[in-house]
């Protein structure tokens, strides 16, 4: 009997999650007795994810690995899943503690928070105004990263964060919000978009406004989507962890839990070729540092994800 592991994503169709699914399928093949169900709502809503989770519970899957649209709203549904013997973990975007056995961070939040502001600062030796273009106002991971970023802001002299706007992970809204930023802050030097949708839209808006060279767009993005903008100069560099590895690791961790591993502070869970992850007091574990892409390496990775 195959073990059924469900990979629940924020919404179907987003490149980042498609790549994660690739990794999950790779893990399934490696493990042999695992069937991965890749699913999610079609829009990024908590209600949609709950419906999906309810039907997974009904199918009696063995594990659910979810990247949530809402930290808290999924907790009751996931608790019910755990009550019925399903191993629940979250990855990428985390669920509140009660709703999962463990959370797999793609990287540690402080590292990411530091990374995104560092990317902006590295290209601004004299300092200047920077603005943040986030995803939805409710998305957990972006909010955490921005909070972490603000903590270390003081380390970067002259860097002045003037605004945070929300593009809701919609290309058009992000585009419009960027236009607003360019308007309102004539001295803007960089835009930090820690979201793969936002960064592309921001780069496009900067290009259309003829501000290449004046405003640098940076943040977190996918190489395949950003390659053009790196080439045009709208973005000098950006970072991301490898979503394939993330999907792979989430699947491996879920499998480990199905096989009886226990998720408790200090425990180490197996992640196949990625080694093992050690859980902290919150039952959270982090993978690795985000990786920086620039003109030198982006083409090469664009072929992969």
């Amino acid at each position, binding site marked *: 009997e195959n073990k059924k592991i469900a990979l629940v994503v924020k919404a*179907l*169709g*987003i*490149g980042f999650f*498609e790549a994660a699914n690739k990794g999950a399928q790779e893990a399934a093949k490696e493990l042999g007795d695992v069937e991965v169900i890749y699913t999610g709502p*079609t*829009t990024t809503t908590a209600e949609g994810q709950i419906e999906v989770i309810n039907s997974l519970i009904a199918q009696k899957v063995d594990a659910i690995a979810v990247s949530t649209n809402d930290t808290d709203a999924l907790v009751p549904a996931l608790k019910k899943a755990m009550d019925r013997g399903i191993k629940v973990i979250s990855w990428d975007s985390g669920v509140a503690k009660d709703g999962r056995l463990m959370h797999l961070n793609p990287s540690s939040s402080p590292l990411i928070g530091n990374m995104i502001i560092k990317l902006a600062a590295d290209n601004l030796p004299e300092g200047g105004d920077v603005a943040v273009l986030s995803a939805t*106002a409710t998305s957990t991971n972006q909010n955490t990263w921005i909070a972490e970023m603000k903590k270390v802001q003081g380390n970067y002299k002259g860097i002045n964060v003037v605004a945070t*706007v*929300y593009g809701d992970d*919609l*290309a*058009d809204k992000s*585009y*419009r*919000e960027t*236009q*607003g*930023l360019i*308007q*309102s802050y*004539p001295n803007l030097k960089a835009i930090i978009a820690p979201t793969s949708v936002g960064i*592309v*839209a921001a780069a*496009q808006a900067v290009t*259309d406004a003829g501000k290449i060279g004046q405003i640098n767009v940076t943040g977190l993005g996918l190489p*395949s*989507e950003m*390659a*053009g*903008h790196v080439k045009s100069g709208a973005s000098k560099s950006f970072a991301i962890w490898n979503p394939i590895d993330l999907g792979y690791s989430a699947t491996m961790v879920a499998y480990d839990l199905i096989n009886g591993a226990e998720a408790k502070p200090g425990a180490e869970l197996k992640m196949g070729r990625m080694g093992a992850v050690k859980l902290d007091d919150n039952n959270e574990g982090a993978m690795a540092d985000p990786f920086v892409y620039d003109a030198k390496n982006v083409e090469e990775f*664009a072929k992969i994800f």
Partner: protein
Amino acid sequence: MMANILRNRELLLVGAIAVLLALITWRFPPFVAPANLGRVYNDTSILIILALGQMAVILTRCIDLSMAANLALSGMVAAMLNAAFPGLPIPLIILAAVALGTLLGMINGALVWKLDIPPIVVTLGTLTIYRGLIFLLSGGKWINAHQMSDAFKALPRDELFGFPVLSWLSLVMIALVFLLMSRTALGRAFYAVGGNPHAAVYTGIDVGRTRFSAYCISGALAGLSGYLWVSRYAVAYVDIAAGFELDIIAACVIGGISIAGGIGTVAGAVLGALFLGVIKNALPVINISPFAQLAISGMVIIVAVAVNARAERRKGRVILRKAEAV
């Protein structure tokens, strides 16, 4: 006719927009710089084009809730065509988008015409169906900027006499729709069918066919906007312009187009769209919290209908001679 075009409702809107601009200028003077106003217009162009189409439909006492979904589907197909055959000339792609949009409009129109299903039900149904089709067609995948050819992305941005093609296109559409509405039998039939469908039959106007034509127009304009949207924002995915149908309807309502059909002008639709466009563009620059935007547009819509309703309120026939003199 001229008197009809500039009835006081339109003037009122012009006034409202002027007041709005004055308020914004007070907080953020650069907003009214000609270049920026041009940019705001450009940014509103797609909404204007869509509002023109919606207007045709609303005039006939129908409604098209599927316009945004139609836009998304046509846009996705245009983007997929471009991604698959980067060599395909752009005019051909635009033609394909418009043709597809028209076809989708025809489906709406045919359901309304031939089966007599209420328009709101038809377009509520096709709204979900068209969105779903995008998913089936694209497998849910995004088409990103790097998959689109440069020519594809360039067209709406290219400048002609200092204005982007996108702005010009919307001006051309306004002119065409204005001619259609005021000088052709079909345009007048829209007013007749919406004003009194029963009487339209007696006048020899085929009510169903007229509504069908209105849906074709809204479909074609949605198809065109599909290409423009996708190329302007350089991305195509299932959810583009999700919820935009309500903005389109709001633009029409603010522009004084009666939801009960038969009343409304091209100028009204354009001004309604511009009003929304100015608000949308201004809020971020005058530092109003992005979270307040939604509530503000809600208030604007409510105030606009209330004002329009006042302007609309029949004076009442005056029977007393004395009162008439007053």
